């Protein structure tokens, strides 16, 4: 069982996440969208989407950075005060995100809400799985102290063993069931990633920061440089 949950399942999830997203991006780009429903409902979206997105983005970054750079992360956590600050920040962010997510779910379930017209089963499933994931993560942050520290010694070695195709489970199999749940559902989120609206997060349009304001597209035209040249 552990072998399936902690070796096969992560590989399946990651393969699908990467494969399907790329396939979908290339063959059905029209289906990529954040699927905003703000036009239908604004007030609850504000109280839900803002905390949820700021929270989840920071938390996700923390998870990823610590996994990719265990050295600097260990150094950061090496000092008692820094560790305390990070621990409290993590907990607060977890609660903040959880609050946002709950508002988002209420928003979708509220009777007579217009948003229901724009809700699919996939939306519901994603919100539900995220609720479990963020709920379990926040609970762990509150009850299993110094998560930052033991994350580095349990999950991170396991990630690295998966990444280098030499799966090694010793650091995770003996963890409490609740923590294991968080790990497995985490990969479930990755598995769901390419199928619904979650793909919007890889589309974060950073190129906007440097592209020119105006976009002009020609059907067919001699390049600008040619025009400038002749114009002289």
């Amino acid at each position: 069982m552990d072998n399936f949950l902690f070796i096969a399942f992560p590989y399946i999830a990651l393969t699908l996440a990467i494969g399907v997203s790329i396939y979908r991006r290339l063959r059905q780009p029209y289906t990529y969208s954040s699927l905003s429903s703000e036009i239908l409902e604004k007030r609850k979206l504000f109280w839900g989407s803002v905390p949820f997105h700021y929270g989840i983005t920071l938390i996700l970054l923390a998870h990823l950075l610590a996994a990719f750079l265990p050295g600097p992360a260990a150094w950061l956590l090496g000092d008692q005060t820094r560790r305390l600050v990070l621990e409290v920040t993590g907990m607060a962010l977890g609660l903040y995100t959880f609050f946002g997510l709950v508002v988002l779910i209420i928003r979708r379930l509220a009777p007579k809400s217009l948003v229901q017209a724009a809700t699919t089963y996939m939306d519901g499933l994603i919100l539900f799985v995220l609720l479990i994931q963020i709920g379990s993560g926040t609970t762990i942050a509150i009850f299993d102290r110094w998560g930052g520290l033991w994350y580095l010694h349990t999950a991170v070695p396991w990630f690295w063993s998966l990444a280098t195709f030499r799966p090694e489970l010793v650091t995770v199999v003996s963890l409490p069931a609740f923590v294991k749940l968080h790990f497995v559902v985490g990969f479930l989120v990755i598995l769901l990633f390419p199928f619904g609206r979650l793909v919007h997060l890889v589309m974060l349009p950073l190129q906007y920061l440097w592209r020119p304001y105006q976009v002009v597209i020609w059907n067919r035209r001699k390049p600008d440089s040619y025009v400038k040249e002749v114009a002289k």
Partner: protein
Amino acid sequence: MNIRAQVSMVFHLDKCIGCHTCSLACKNLWTDRPGTEYMWWNNVETKPGTGYPTLYEDQEQYSGGWVVENGKLRLRLGSRKSELVNISYNPRLPALDDYYHPFTYRYQDLIDAPPGEDQPVARPISMITGEDMEIEAGPNWDDSMGGSEIYAANDPNLKSLTEEERRQFFELQQLVYFYLPRICNHCLNPSCVAACPSGAIYKRGEDGIVLVSQEKCQGWRMCISGCPYKKVYFNWNSGKAEKCILCYPRMEMGEPPACMHTCVGKIRYLGVVLYDADRIEETASKPEAELVEAQRDLILNPFDPEVVRQALICGIDLKIIESAQKSPIYRYVKQWRMALPLHPEWRTLPMLFYIPPLLPVTATLSQEGYYEMDSEFFSSLESARLPIRYMASLFTSGDEAEVVAVYRKLLGVRIYKRAESVGDISMETAFQALKEAGLTPEDVEGIYHLTAIAGADERMVVPPFLREQAIEMGMDTQDFQEHRGFGNLIWPTRGL
């Protein structure tokens, strides 16, 4: 010079009868799908009035268009960084209530109702949820000044009037209004394009039509806030932004856009103009008072041999230049200087121009709605029923002289033609009027012809789109024209 061609429009407001045929033609053709029910790519609003969506002109609230900051143009919406920071919730986005909750009626009830004492009624139902609803607003709730004390009274342009003028205006017998049909302006400096984080909105190089690539659009919905005219709409069903496509599929087949083709009042003119794309930014950053003139200046004379030469160098086909020479837009906007852009102070350089309406201005109560033309023909402008300042707030960012100049021309043409055909005004007076308006008798004949006589081919000069030259045989059009602004290969429903 970097000369480009732009399909451009003029709406003659004196001729609009407010019948909404244009809106319906558009709705039936393009926006009768789920998610687009509330979209009116073409709408006709009553002015004074709050417009669609409600109070869209209030940029304090919606932050559309551009502002000049330290001599540089920037989006009023904020910096690019702030746009990304606000991406998961856009505070400037209008909500459905600012438009209206789209409705239909359960007509089946009329048929299925059991026999009884009362007439069966068709209940209103929501087009979004399909459930019963109360109708509280519609896309034209203040049509012809319905509810003027709530709607028209809040028109942001009335701020230009004094308290007394406003009070007088709302005296029942004093009320006056006109219609303002609006579509996307296909601007030269579009702020929707600039606001799109994904770069999905683009201007077509050949004809200047602004489109939203349905495949690149990720539903960040910043364009809707970016456009000060609120002519980009969000499809809640597909999660993509959509807007007026100027019926490019029709135009590519040589037909004018549907709203223009069906227009009952024949108010709509279309044609291609040439402009210098290198001067867009410079023009849009001019001080407010100079904007109208600067925009006029940007449009080039297609009869000038030097312009023609440069245009050919820039790769513009001779057929398009010839079409530009026939363009009614060039004549109204540049030659006769009669058509003005709507709210130039938003700095998007809109390419839809309006000829302001004469009647609401000149009619006075004492004349029972008619205006006298022989005596003191221009003095009526000062005592206008709907003050010139209101028109200036709409069409010239407050510059009254510019509006008065147009009205002098409109009146000049009428006085001259009246002297000629009815004869109750002396020709002397008529020439005097023309002199003050700055028109020649040939101008008058031209204006008269294009305004009152011209047939569809003269009013709507669709340029050749030269699709046959667009690509080599066997190539995929989509690769060249980026992705489509409309139409999909897969069913346009919600993405997974």
